[in-house]
């Protein structure tokens, strides 16, 4: 690190007249002084950044370690191809498919609601709403994001499912559709606020270029602002997907906790996360196969989230704003 000469302390006297002619005086502060201070700050910054990395590595390490124990009992092929997950029963099957299907179904239902509504909300707030409307709507949306997820779970169980049963009388009390929709409601604020920030970051001069061509507000929003904000909008969707995949309580409360290999959202089901709480809340002997299975499915969850984040990263690179 080089000392910056332009930042010399001003207290150093500047020689004038006669002094200038006298013997040379070194007015440069000693380099090491600045160096020590900078180094200390650098160490602190590094430690902070490193601790996050260390925790992540530790979590993945434990997941891999305990999963390895699981896979020494259960062949990987069974885990991937068996269509039943009956680990709590006497006749055990170890197919992850039912949990994976449950996760994908609730996530998909949630996203089918949250992505359109969140995107439209973001477009409205960024391009159409006046300052006053925005001042009211944004805090309400943030409130939506602050409600504990257990509350959402009961909301799904006692309000959304009964409401759905009004239209679909055959719908069972526990199903994946209700919780899926509630997950959608839950993640709308995440999608809309990140997408809105991305749209508002589109420079005014680009919008003006569109208006000056005779475009309407809607045309400007859809044809210029949204394409210009693509990378941020993709980031919003990825955040929404990660939240939906990781969502636990809503499904655990309202979807029935029965691992059920089906793609039909009207049926009950369990997701990876719901299974993890279910099993973790019971008292399992350390080292038992049930205990180890949590880590195996947890690893699957991490891999899913990771691959979505990777996709999002690639998409962001592909659509990076260049203005």
């Amino acid at each position, binding site marked *: 690190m080089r000392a910056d000469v332009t930042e010399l302390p001003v207290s150093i006297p500047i020689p004038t007249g006669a002094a200038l002619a006298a013997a040379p005086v070194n007015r440069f502060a000693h380099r090491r002084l600045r160096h020590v201070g900078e180094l200390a700050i650098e160490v602190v910054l590094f430690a902070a950044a490193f601790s996050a990395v260390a925790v992540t590595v530790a979590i993945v390490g434990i997941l891999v370690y305990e999963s390895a124990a699981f896979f020494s009992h259960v062949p990987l092929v069974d885990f991937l191809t068996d269509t039943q997950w009956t680990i709590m029963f006497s006749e055990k099957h170890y197919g992850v498919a039912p949990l994976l299907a449950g996760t994908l179904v609730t996530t998909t239902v949630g996203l089918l609601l949250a992505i359109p509504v969140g995107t439209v909300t973001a477009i409205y707030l960024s391009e159409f709403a*006046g300052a006053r409307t925005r001042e009211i709507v944004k805090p309400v949306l943030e409130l939506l994001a602050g409600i504990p997820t257990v509350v959402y779970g009961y909301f799904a169980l006692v309000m959304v499912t009964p409401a759905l049963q009004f239209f679909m009388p055959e719908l069972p009390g526990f199903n994946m559709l209700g919780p899926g929709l509630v997950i959608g409601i839950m993640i709308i604020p995440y999608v809309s606020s990140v997408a809105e920030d991305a749209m508002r970051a589109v420079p005014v001069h680009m919008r003006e270029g569109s208006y000056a061509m*005779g475009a309407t507000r809607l045309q400007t929003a859809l044809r210029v602002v949204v394409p210009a904000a693509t990378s941020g909008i993709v980031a919003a969707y990825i955040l929404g997907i990660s939240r939906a995949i990781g969502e636990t309580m809503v499904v655990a409360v309202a979807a029935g906790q029965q691992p059920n290999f089906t793609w039909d959202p009207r049926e009950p089901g369990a997701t990876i996360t719901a299974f993890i709480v279910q099993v973790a809340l019971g008292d399992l002997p350390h080292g038992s196969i049930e205990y180890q299975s949590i880590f195996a499915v947890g690893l699957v969850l991490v891999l899913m989230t990771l691959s979505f984040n990777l996709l999002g990263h690639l998409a962001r690179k592909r659509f990076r704003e*260049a*203005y």
Partner: protein
Amino acid sequence: MRMIDANTMGTPAVTSGAVPAPALKAEARALDFFYGEVQALRKIDLPVWENRVTALIGPSGCGKSTFLRCFNRMHDIGEGRNRYHGEIVFHPDGVDILHRSVDPIEVRMRIGMVFQKPNPFPKSIFENVAYGLRVRGERSRSAIADRVEAALRDASLWDEVGDRLHDMAFNLSGGQQQRLCIARALATSPELLLFDEPTSALDPNATANIEDLINRLKEKVSILIVTHNMQQAARVSDYTAFMYLGELVEFGDTNVVFTNPKKRQTEDYITGRFG
């Protein structure tokens, strides 16, 4: 309402013999403009002649951009605290385009604008130029392709980008991006083209290209250009308007304004004795 005094309006010089007298394309009449409570323009009268280049000069903050943006109602966008007073009459319609009954979108369909900083859209070169046509609901692929090519040729950009129309516009150089923005505006055949310091973000070479272009474009379109560069005003314009503190101080034939200004303020400004 004050009437425009023909003698001070830079009626085309008698010396231009064979050239027919130009028609009026637009005229500002007693135009005031307010940003909320702040008055930015005061009683401006200015003619814009057809197929001529009219330059707006004046120190920074004197209201050149504000005035220019009245012509395509850009001030209508936003929270709605901006107010116009007075008229801008657009010819040959003879309609006051600032009137409440006139749709600003219609105005912008006939009056194009090129901005200070090149502002291409995050689209391909082709789609940038096609934008105005698509916004107007043009569906015919061949009609769009023809208009895009013609506009790129008019903007002297075809030779450089004709073989890579589907590249992203952001990959072009600054000067090319600005010519692309000109092509985008030309594609919809505007009657009046507004330029707000179109070369201030460009290097001298790209600037010279744009100035050449403006000189050629006036055969097709009337031009109103804001510039902070007096040499540029002298090079490209037929008429020059000098503005100061929101008022129009002097308007006339560019040669006259630059060699024999009537007002002391104008003289001080063009000789660099200003402020």
